């Protein structure tokens, strides 16, 4: 069996079903509406595994699923040296979101990373601790700020309602996913133009560590043909 992991609910699940459906492979949830099991028709030897989008990177890395659909941001953030563990086979053209750095709109003096760094330095001198950036994307944000030579900041973990952390005084700035920027504006935050860390979209990934015995490889070839994709390098 070739196992393919897809998001188990919401728009990401619906769009994934649509994408495969448009290529003649129909995916559907089975059983009770609350039960996380699914079916794929139109090809033999493939099993559908319904998973939380956030857990798909880990399952891919462990090789417990052969293929998986999830956001490119999650794979890059959750997996160390992600290219060694998964191959990004095909971007799917939906689930677009940008991982950005946002600061209060009233920070009229901060528009560039250079400004953010200088503001962080002055903030630390003034307040006695490093400027806090709330995020759940620790690896991506830290790598980005290190590469751009920004210092004197601290990352604080925020798993949800991140836009509210500044108002609640648990952070001075945030790094989060946004598609329209509306929630940011509603919370009096502005996107730092130089602070675009990653442009994410739903992507079909292949697990390098999965069991690629001849049977699974043959199924993968058949799947690639059905999807109209070139075979990925495993």
């Amino acid at each position, binding site marked *: 069996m070739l196992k393919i992991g897809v998001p188990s609910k919401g728009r990401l699940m619906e769009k994934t079903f649509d994408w495969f459906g448009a290529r003649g492979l129909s995916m559907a949830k089975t059983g009770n509406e609350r039960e996380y099991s699914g079916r794929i028709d139109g090809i033999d030897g493939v099993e559908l595994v319904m998973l939380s989008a956030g857990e798909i990177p880990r399952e891919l890395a462990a090789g417990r699923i052969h293929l998986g659909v999830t956001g490119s941001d999650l794979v890059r953030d959750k997996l160390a040296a992600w290219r060694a*563990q998964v191959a990004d086979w095909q971007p799917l053209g939906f689930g677009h979101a940008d991982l950005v750095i946002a600061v*209060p709109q009233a920070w*009229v003096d901060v*528009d560039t990373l*250079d400004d953010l760094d200088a503001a962080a330095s002055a903030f630390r001198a003034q307040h006695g601790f490093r400027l806090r950036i709330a995020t759940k994307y620790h690896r991506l944000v830290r790598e980005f700020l290190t590469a751009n030579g920004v210092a004197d900041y*601290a990352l604080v973990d925020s798993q949800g309602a991140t836009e509210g952390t500044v108002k609640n005084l648990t952070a001075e700035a945030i790094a989060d996913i946004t598609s329209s920027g509306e929630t940011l504006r509603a919370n009096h*935050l502005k996107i730092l*133009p130089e602070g675009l860390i990653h442009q994410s979209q739903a992507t079909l990934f292949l697990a390098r560590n999965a069991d690629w015995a001849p049977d699974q490889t043959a199924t993968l070839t058949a799947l690639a043909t059905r999807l109209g994709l070139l075979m990925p390098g495993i």
Partner: protein
Amino acid sequence: MMLSASDRAAIRAVADELYTRLLAAGAVPVETEILQPAGPLLDLYGEDIRARAYVTADPGLGEMMLRPDFTVPVVEAHMRDGAEPARYAYMGEVFRRQEDPDARAREYLQVGFEIFDRAAPEADAEVFALFSDLLAPLNLRPATGDIGILMAAVRGLSTSDRRKAALLRHIWRPKRFRALLDRFAGRAAPSPARAALLDRLKSDTPEALIEAAGPLVGLRSPEDIAGRAAALIEDAATPPIAATEAALLYDLLTLQAPSLAALAHLRGIAPMLPAITPAIERFAARLEALKARGVNVETLPFEASHGRTTLEYYDGFVFTLAAADPGLPAVASGGRYDALTAHLGQGGSIPAVGGIIRPELVARLKGAI
């Protein structure tokens, strides 16, 4: 790559031998805890350390790290209850978190030596000569530098204190340092956003701009923002760093020569940048001390930027001893870190210099593993 149990034993035997020789050279043995409180390390290295150290949590003490280096705990112990002058030796594991699954060095032994002594050039020479001597049979390639000269050059620029502070803050981040220098020297234009802000500040007060931009949320206060706006106005009115001075600094960043030739070159530029003279004289005194200990300073390589990316708390003499294989990390490295003792010393400070040796690499080069 995993080391076998017998390889590990062979590495420990090499470490023991190095450690014994450091003790024979007059060092006092010290031990530090493997679990270190994360606070001082985060303060010193910033958020980057989280990517390079194993972080864990203690229910009572909070965030802890598996010892990523010995220098910080040894300095803390010395500042707390050490008498000076002091020479310490230590041996033990350090832990480095690795992103690359194939990386080798997640935990490895270090043998180290630290001197807390006010006789600076002598102590620099003592550490370097001792390490060179211990490792002489391996025919390692030495490299040296002096961050202090670069810092003195920045402090000596005829520009605002604010610009000097910004450059000094980023001396260990070559990319941002270079970007700042380019901007302060007028080689790079300010961003359009900066130009627009300065334009608006001509007609409006910072307070009015903050008010117009929207409700202010968060701890960064209107005073913080207005303070930075004032700094930007001051900076815009500051003339670019003179082309001759900037050229000297660019020249210094790329200076690479055998030590005596480097000294002659630095003495040649000192009249144009007199502030670096004391740092050059310290360099000269160090070369004398090295020569007295049998180091060939005619050929000893010197690079003004050596160690700027990897050895971040060093602020004076820096050195590495490396094998011919460029794929291997340095077998030994070290340097002077006077500012660190002030930073960790809660008021006190003492000149300090030290270095570490990686016994695994020594064992490998000796063919013991």
